[in-house]
């Protein structure tokens, strides 16, 4: 769908690339935010991804695959951005709770907070597969292509990510330990 713009941009047309960026930028922001859970980091990652895409556009073999190709770059930029800000990220506060429930229904604010804490404990790689699979609704084969990893790795990361989420949620739901009670 973006083929004409991609072709023109590959020829060095900055205007065409600008138009192309504006057609895909919002989705990139959505993906990056959901992986990084921080709007500023996501913004930086998207900017870096778009600039990298411009620089490397001529290496794109199939213009019809621009979006998957860009998502792959974006994911790497998310990883890189997180690594660059490791110390800062470690001090990130939990974002304020949004009291509006999503359409699918997080049952309570408490659930949402628990899920947020659990999600943030996942590795970036685990978050990425969850975002591409559960947010973009992509099949695992497509997720594998966009992340540049084997299908088996996608399945494995999905499995471990969901297991880790469940374990975190269950741990949060557990009553305080005996030692904590004694301390109290």
């Amino acid at each position, binding site marked *: 769908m973006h083929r004409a713009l991609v*072709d023109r941009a*590959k*020829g*060095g047309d*900055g205007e065409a690339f*600008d138009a192309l*960026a*504006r057609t895909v*930028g*919002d*989705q*990139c*922001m*959505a993906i990056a*935010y*959901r992986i990084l*859970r921080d*709007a500023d980091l*996501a*913004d930086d990652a*998207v*900017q870096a991804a*778009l*600039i*990298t895409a*411009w*620089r*490397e556009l*001529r*290496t794109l*073999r199939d213009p019809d695959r621009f979006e998957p*190709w860009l998502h792959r*770059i974006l994911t*790497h*930029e998310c990883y*890189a951005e997180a690594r660059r800000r490791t110390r800062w990220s470690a001090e990130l506060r939990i974002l304020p709770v*949004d009291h509006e*429930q*999503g*359409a*699918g*229904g*997080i*049952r309570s604010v408490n*659930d949402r907070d*628990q*899920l*947020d804490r659990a*999600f943030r404990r996942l590795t970036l790689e685990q978050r990425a597969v*969850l*975002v591409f699979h*559960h*947010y973009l609704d992509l099949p695992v084969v497509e997720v594998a292509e966009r992340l*540049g990893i*084997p299908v088996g790795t996608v399945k494995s990361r999905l499995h471990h990510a*969901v297991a880790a*989420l*469940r374990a975190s*949620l*269950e741990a949060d739901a557990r009553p305080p330990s005996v030692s904590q009670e004694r301390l109290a």
Partner: protein
Amino acid sequence: MTTSRDLERSLRAYLDEGPSVLPDRSYDVVRADIDRTRQRVVIGPWREPRMSNLPRIAIAAAAVLAVVIVGYNVLPGGGGTGGPGPSPSPTVSPTATPQPTAAPEATGPISLPLGPVAAGTYVVHPFLAPNDSIGFQLTLPPGWEAGGPTGRAPVGAAPTTGHEGPGGMSFGFLTIASLEGDPCRWYEPADIEIGPAVDDLVTALAANPGYETTAPVDVALGGFSGTRIDVQLPAGLDLAACDAGEFHVWADGDGQTIYAQGPEGRFHLWILDVRGTTVVVMTHDFPGTPADDQAELQAIVDSIQIQP
């Protein structure tokens, strides 16, 4: 929230939250950056945009050149080079390839055009300033096409039959600004800066564990001395697992992109000191490249004369 269905529903709702709009200022930042950032150019795949136009452009360019040269030769007193220095004998083959028609007679090497070229001797100045005065004269057999950045002189060539593995080949001219720390993870900003001397580059290549190198050997090529070293991709490397499925050994000084064209790819490097500038003549082939093709590639290298 313990069943899989509950967890999945909650996860989807959670992922639906959050910003989904890139701020306008971010587009402005990107736009400002791309206006001053050159696109990297792929050498080897020759998949320049508007590639389908290249043969036509090359034909047109060659036709114009032929008219100019023939016209010059038939003019009274024509046939000289029109300039100082030695006058090479006509070197463009009268036998045209199926693509462009080259000049039947020429008064010296002609500038290598982009796209398919006829057999003959050409000269090319592949580098940007301040190295744009460095020229390479070389003789190409039939069936080759030159490639490089749009709006610039070619930076290399490959047979029209293919440059990719398992049996292709190509050659190019480059300067190397830095090495990729991990050639498979070249998205990472882990460049290894290279000193200005030939030995600096040779030492850095030999020290990188990301690929295998041959023992450096002193060589002379095109009138200049330097070092020959080969780079071999690691055995069993899964290119698909590399960033963008590509293996990048170095970052080029002029911003072009050269990367391995398949598993088991080999780079043969003549790293030369051209009056204080480290210049690389590179060929790229595979263990599966036929011996006759390898000999043809070597003959091209052997024909190179460097004009500093």
